[in-house]
């Protein structure tokens, strides 16, 4: 594939990516967001800056070229102000921090000394342009008086007024666009469509008008919501800032860098904005009622669009290359998309399909082979294309064409000129990347599956997506960690003996109190506006730190700090921690598990930022992590930092060596244990990532600079720092983890660690090697499901690595230019017992928890639905405010909360072993409970199902699945008692175990309390598992049983006989019969001799044969050792033996001349008769499997007769009659066999004899019903037979 072309690849991939970005630039300015353009920030810097320089010189007229230049230059904050990255002054301009690509490195996001208001950058961003903004707003307001009354009129239903209004709109529009004919009769929605078509041009309008589109000025009281208002008034949410903000997925807060610095604002983001723009807006908002306000805004927007269009279109697309505000205006241009109608993408309008397909293929291969720096960034880009809106109208095309004729060389045709092409391309790529897409979380899949563009462009893909969505179980909660936490109780190890002196001990006690005091204060106040960490807490922290006189105290405090950090910030899943101490657990205990998930979803919609921030946000310290980071910064204590690093390193090393003990087979009873193991892994991984992030923060803190320093300083800095040893040998750890196949645990935290590197660190020899190794790993990890590593494990590693490559302080040339040192690690990797990579540990929840930015894909798609909502009715569902009475159970909720707190307090005062014991008992009893239910209740149900299914098995295949569903549905009802039984089980077993495990001396009260808690936790665990998994379990078990039944029923013999085996041994059987294998072997020997070749004198004793047959009978009677295969073989062999006997091919010897008068021939014949008789009886009596006796009359057997010169048909006839007499074959069956024999090619005389025999057989059976013994009848010389014929 592409990989071998290393040299080409180096330049080719960035070229391809830039080409695509460049080509789609115009379309995407209308898209819901642009951050995906920043991928190019990773393009080769040297190339970029070269181009930048030269093209600047070339002048501004070169539209497309200059835009590409911008693409390259967008990598730094500077791009937001000026494309020239080499101007440090522009970088430091405060406005730059407002842009998503830039704030990656911006100081205000991650460092506390900037004030909260400072980090609320949208505000700041616009300060610079305040004046122009006002001006445009003023001009804009002038138009409103005209429009306003008309709109009101229309609302009243006065058609004449509304038509006037529409007329005005139309006139205005006509003045803007040439083709009136098209829009003449369009309805209001048609007008909207028009508007959306115009939008691209508005996007390209000069920057001073951009603020008209600004989201802050025009909060998203959009078309979608206004329509909802009309159609479903009951679902309407009043336009309070929060609700208005959320459903429209506006990228309002995307200007702020991180959730941390946003967090005051993020909760009520528009609150801030409203405040800021109060002067402009508040009057309007408050004076008009909610709904009319809505409409006003709509009209305003339309007007504004027209104005914009008016000013921009005559001048063509004035692409000012120095217009670094491109990012800026594209942001604002994206804002009104919700009010637009999406252009209908049409497959038939796609031009240059072939090229697009080739491009898509090329691009897909780059993605599949990990040649792009971040696969999710590319997917985001593709989804942007898929959801792109606008610029499809012919006039735009025309403009575009004219425009392009001037400045574009022929080679670079615009393949992505219109939406149709973009969508076509996007669908092609998605189709090829289906495997990745199908592993995304369910919500994203749903949006993709319901995307009408995909449905119309590729029904096949649509169908597959539908299927993937339906079968997906990957529900993911994107809930961020809640910041409100209770202070954890302090565990062991803090007693006096750990301190050198009483004084030190007391100092530490004091420090701990102060620390928690600070923490509580932070918790209570940090979200209040105007609260500043440094100002309020800074001095107190430093005062506390001065108490650390002894090194001992530093280490103690560092340990406390770290423990508290882990406890509070481990992450939303809380995996691995035991019951009751995760933040969510409080909530869970309050609400019960039913309501919890609903609450979570609701909370998620409120709390999780819906803004699209692009798939590569900068490293951040969200939630409580903020406190710890700010604490470190404010304390500014070298000693403390050192001790903390020591402590972090130790903990990281400890966690990194996690082993999963009980990794057992994938289903069956190991379910629960496996889940526990997964939880443990998740917990370890999240903790590692957290600690590594803080370690990285500390390690690189001294070198951290606000702006990327100039590269001149690099050499000396690197030379200086190359001498020091790394604090934690991540390279060694990485290598080891690759060797031991534990990358799934190690890489994510190493990435967190490295994400905080300063700008020079990647150039150090040591970290250069680390990055190179990671890069190699990234390339190596081609996505596919294989034995060595499960798909989602790989996906997680790729996602975090891809993210790392986009972190601003990681040099952009790293990905494309650095030489990949071929370490042979991957191939040398060994399968060790501690290997984790092969274990499917990652699920979508973990993936999205580690990489919340993957949720951007979903938001992007969701915003598209919101935007196109008016057309297809696909609104984002509104949150329905619930009535007051639903809050009735409130007292019990508080009670429950109190209960939880009481439990915490209870454990607090007891030795830690008590808590461990209770948790252990709860865990084991819960697990045992599930096993017990499986073994009893589920097993019973399955048996029941078996009975129910028994009769219906024979029905057609098609009905099977329906049948199964029906039966399962009946069983589910009974399955419901599992919960009851589970509770009973826990109540019985829990206390027993606690009693045995706790010390004898435990007081009765403590004991009974501990028992209660253990029972409660165990019950909860078991019930949660049962309620979520029981139906699936029943279904699976029933299906397995059913499949077994089908198999049994299918081919003739199996398990009934196998079952019967043991039953059917005669009661007094000693199991001393010869083994079947022995008998087969002996029969084989006989056959060998019979078939030949054999020596002259070779033969088989009659006695031996007789004995063999009697032993055969014994063997078959004792069923102990018989298996179906051997029995079938015995049947086949004996039939063969019979055929050979019938045709007299067995050289029987040792016949005693009992009746000397009879001739030899006669004696032999009698012997054969007797052998055949015993064979017939064995077949009839002793075989359990059907004996293929019809083979006796096969051509092969009969041909034995044909070869004999002296044919003896009487034996054959005897056999035929014997078969009938023993009920082994029917008359008709034999007749038809005989008949079909004639079809073969025989010597003519033989054929005649055959016919005669058939006739004799048939006549005998027809005539002589109580007949004489057949052998007597037939025993006549051959001559007679021949004569008769």
């Amino acid at each position, binding site marked *: 594939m592409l990989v071998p072309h290393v040299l080409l690849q180096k330049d080719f991939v960035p070229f391809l990516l830039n080409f695509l970005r460049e080509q789609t630039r115009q379309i995407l300015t209308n898209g819901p967001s642009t951050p995906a353009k920043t991928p190019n920030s990773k393009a080769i810097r040297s190339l970029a800056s070269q181009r930048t320089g030269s093209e600047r010189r070339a002048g501004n007229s070169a539209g497309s070229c200059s835009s590409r230049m911008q693409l390259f230059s967008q990598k730094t904050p500077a791009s937001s102000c000026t494309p020239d990255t080499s101007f440090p002054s522009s970088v430091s301009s405060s406005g730059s921090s407002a842009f998503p690509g830039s704030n990656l490195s911006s100081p205000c996001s991650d460092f506390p000394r900037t004030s909260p208001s400072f980090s609320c950058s949208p505000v700041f961003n616009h300060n610079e342009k305040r004046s122009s903004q006002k001006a445009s707003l003023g001009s804009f307001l002038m138009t409103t008086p005209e429009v306003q009354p008309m709109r009101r009129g229309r609302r009243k239903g006065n058609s004449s007024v509304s038509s006037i209004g529409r007329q005005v709109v139309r006139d205005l529009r006509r003045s803007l666009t040439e083709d009136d004919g098209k829009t003449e009769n369009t309805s209001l929605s048609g007008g909207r469509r028009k508007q959306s078509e115009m939008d691209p041009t508005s996007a390209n309008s000069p920057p001073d008008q951009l603020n008209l589109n600004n989201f802050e000025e025009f909060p998203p009281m959009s078309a979608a919501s206004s329509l909802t208002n009309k159609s479903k008034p009951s679902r309407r949410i009043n336009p309070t800032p929060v609700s208005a903000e959320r459903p429209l997925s506006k990228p309002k807060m995307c200007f702020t860098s991180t959730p941390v610095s946003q967090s005051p604002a993020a909760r009520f983001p528009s609150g801030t904005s409203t405040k800021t723009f109060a002067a402009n807006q508040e009057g309007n908002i408050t004076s008009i009622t909610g709904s009319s306000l809505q409409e006003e805004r709509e009209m305003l927007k339309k007007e504004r669009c027209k104005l914009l269009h008016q000013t921009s279109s005559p001048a063509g697309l004035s692409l000012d290359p120095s217009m670094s505000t491109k990012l800026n205006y594209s942001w604002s241009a994206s804002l009104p998309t919700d009010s637009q109608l999406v252009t209908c993408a049409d497959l038939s309008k796609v031009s240059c399909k072939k090229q697009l397909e080739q491009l898509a293929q090329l691009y897909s291969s780059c993605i599949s082979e990990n040649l792009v720096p971040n696969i999710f960034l590319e997917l985001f880009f593709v989804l942007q294309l898929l959801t792109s809106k606008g610029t499809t109208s012919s006039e735009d095309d025309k403009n575009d064409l004219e425009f392009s004729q001037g400045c574009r060389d022929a080679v670079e045709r615009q393949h992505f000129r219109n939406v149709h092409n973009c969508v076509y391309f996007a669908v092609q790529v998605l189709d090829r990347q289906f495997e990745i897409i199908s592993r995304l979380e369910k919500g994203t899949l749903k949006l993709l599956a319901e995307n009408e563009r995909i449905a119309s462009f590729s029904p096949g893909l649509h169908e597959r997506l539908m299927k993937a969505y339906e079968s997906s179980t990957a529900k993911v909660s994107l809930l961020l960690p809640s910041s409100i936490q209770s202070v954890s109780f302090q565990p062991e190890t803090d007693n006096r003996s750990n301190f050198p002196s009483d004084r030190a001990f007391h100092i530490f006690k004091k420090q701990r109190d102060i620390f928690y005091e600070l923490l509580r204060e932070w918790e209570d106040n940090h979200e209040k506006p105007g609260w500043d960490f440094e100002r309020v807490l800074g001095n107190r922290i430093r005062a506390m730190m001065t108490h650390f006189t002894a090194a001992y105290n530093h280490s103690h405090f560092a340990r406390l700090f770290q423990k508290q950090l882990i406890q509070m910030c481990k992450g939303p899943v809380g995996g691995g921690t035991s019951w009751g101490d995760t933040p969510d657990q409080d909530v869970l205990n309050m609400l019960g598990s039913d309501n919890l998930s609903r609450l979570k979803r609701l909370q998620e919609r409120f709390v999780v930022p819906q803004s699209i921030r692009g798939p590569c946000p900068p490293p951040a310290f969200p939630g409580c992590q903020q406190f710890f980071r700010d604490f470190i910064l404010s304390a500014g204590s070298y000693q403390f930092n050192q001790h903390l690093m020591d402590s972090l390193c130790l903990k990281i090393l400890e966690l990194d060596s996690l082993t999963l003990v009980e990794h057992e087979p994938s289903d069956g009873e190991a379910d629960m244990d496996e889940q526990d193991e997964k939880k443990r892994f998740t917990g370890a991984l999240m903790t590692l990532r957290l600690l590594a992030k803080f370690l990285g923060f500390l390690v690189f803190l001294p070198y951290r600079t606000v702006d990327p320093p100039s590269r001149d300083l690099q050499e000396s800095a690197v030379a200086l720092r190359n001498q020091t040893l790394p604090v934690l040998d991540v390279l060694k750890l990485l290598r080891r983890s690759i060797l031991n196949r534990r990358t799934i645990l190690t890489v994510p935290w190493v990435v967190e660690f490295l994400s905080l590197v300063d700008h020079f660190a990647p150039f150090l020899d040591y970290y250069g090697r680390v990055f190179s190794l990671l890069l190699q790993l990234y390339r190596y990890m081609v996505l596919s499901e294989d034995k060595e590593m499960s798909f989602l494990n790989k996906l997680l590693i790729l996602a975090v690595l891809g993210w790392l490559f986009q972190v601003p302080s990681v040099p952009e040339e790293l990905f494309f230019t650095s030489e990949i040192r071929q370490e042979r690690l991957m191939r040398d990797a060994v399968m060790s017992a501690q290997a984790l990579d092969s274990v499917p540990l990652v699920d979508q929840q973990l993936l999205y928890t580690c990489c919340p930015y993957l949720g951007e894909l979903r938001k992007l798609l969701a915003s598209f639905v919101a935007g196109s909502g008016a057309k297809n009715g696909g609104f984002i569902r509104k949150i329905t405010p619930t009535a007051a009475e639903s809050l009735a159970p409130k007292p019990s909720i508080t009670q429950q909360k109190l209960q939880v707190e009481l439990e915490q307090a209870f454990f607090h005062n007891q030795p830690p072993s008590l808590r461990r014991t209770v948790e252990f008992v709860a865990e084991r009893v819960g697990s045992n409970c599930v096993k017990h239910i499986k073994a009893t209740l589920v097993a019973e149900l399955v048996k029941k199902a078996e009975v129910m299914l028994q009769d219906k098995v024979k029905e057609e295949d098609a009905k099977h699945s329906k049948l199964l569903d029906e039966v399962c549905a009946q069983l589910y009802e009974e399955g419901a008692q599992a919960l009851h039984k589970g509770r009973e089980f826990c109540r019985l077993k829990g206390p027993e175990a606690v009693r045995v495990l706790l010390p004898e001396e435990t007081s009765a009260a403590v004991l009974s309390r501990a028992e209660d808690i253990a029972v409660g936790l165990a019950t909860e665990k078991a019930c949660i598992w049962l309620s979520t998994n029981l139906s699936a379990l029943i279904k699976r078990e029933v299906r397995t049983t059913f499949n077994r039944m089908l198999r049994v029923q299918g081919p003739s013999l199996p398990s009934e006989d196998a079952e019967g085996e043991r039953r059917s041994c005669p009661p007094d059987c000693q199991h001393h019969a010869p083994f079947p294998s022995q008998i087969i072997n002996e029969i*084989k020997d006989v056959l060998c001799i019979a078939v030949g070749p054999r020596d002259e004198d070779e033969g088989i004793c009659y006695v031996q044969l007789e004995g063999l047959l009697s032993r055969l009978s014994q063997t078959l009677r004792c069923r102990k050792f018989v298996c179906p295969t051997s029995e079938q073989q015995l049947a*086949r062999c004996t039939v063969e033996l019979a055929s050979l006997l019938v045709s007299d091919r067995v050289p029987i010897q040792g016949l005693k001349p009992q009746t000397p008068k009879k001739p030899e021939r006669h004696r032999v014949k009698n012997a054969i008769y007797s052998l055949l008789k015993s064979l017939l009886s064995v077949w009839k009596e002793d075989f359990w499997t059907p004996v293929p006796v019809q083979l006796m009359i096969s051509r092969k057997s009969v041909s034995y007769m044909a070869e004999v010169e002296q044919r003896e048909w009487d034996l054959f006839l005897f056999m035929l009659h014997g078969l009938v007499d023993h009920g082994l074959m029917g008359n008709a069956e034999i007749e038809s066999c005989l008949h079909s024999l004639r079809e073969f090619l025989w010597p003519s005389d033989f054929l005649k004899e055959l016919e005669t025999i058939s006739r004799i057989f048939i006549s005998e059976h027809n005539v002589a019903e109580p007949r004489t013994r057949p052998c007597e009848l037939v025993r006549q010389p051959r001559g007679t037979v021949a004569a008769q014929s």
Partner: protein
Amino acid sequence: MKLSKAQYDEIAQFLGHVQPTRQSLRKLKERFPGQSQSTLLSIFSQEYQKQIKRTHAKHHTAEAIETYYQRYLNGVMKNAAAPVLLELANEVDFAPSLMARIVLERFLQEQEGAVPTKTLINSMLRDPSQIPDGVLANQVYQCTVNDCCYGPLVDCIKHAIGHEHEVLLREMLLEKNLSFLAEEQLRAKGYDKTPDFILEVPVAVEGHIIHWIESKASFGDECSHQAYLHDQFWSYWNRILHFIFCIC
């Protein structure tokens, strides 16, 4: 049953280059009367299989196949009742069953113009009466019956022996009162790879701790030990630890 390395080597030495016929087996029995027939047969079979593995490729070249087929046709033309195929196999030092397979495959290919499926071939070898040509059917049957190392009959015998020994082993475990989980139970529990028996409580045998038992019911020479280790035991080991390699 234990067999010293020296004894084993002696037998292997004797086997050298023999044809897998009952005549050879008879000679073997005469030479080593102390050994049971099954032991001898097992060793014979393994040694012969090694030999065949070495030469397998050379019998499957297009030229070789064509030569064999033509020789078969000529032979049968002269005398259809003569053991043409069997003698041919012995002459070129190849297992008769495998020779029969080659010729049958070639024959079907010629008749039907396409390469026949493996299932069809196997089914015809198992039941030669399905072979559309009567002469060939007899020839093939003669080969499979006379082959004591390859062919459906031998396979079946091996399978039967395996089953019988598993039953015996179960018997012995029950007798010794050792609690165990058998293969079916393990499968029901969802084990993907299962040995014959897992001991619920491990036992010590001659100072080694035994967790599970796999009955192979064949002679365990070094080579097969290696192969089994590779194919099965490591995958068990990853799951269950110690095992006993039970060979009867």
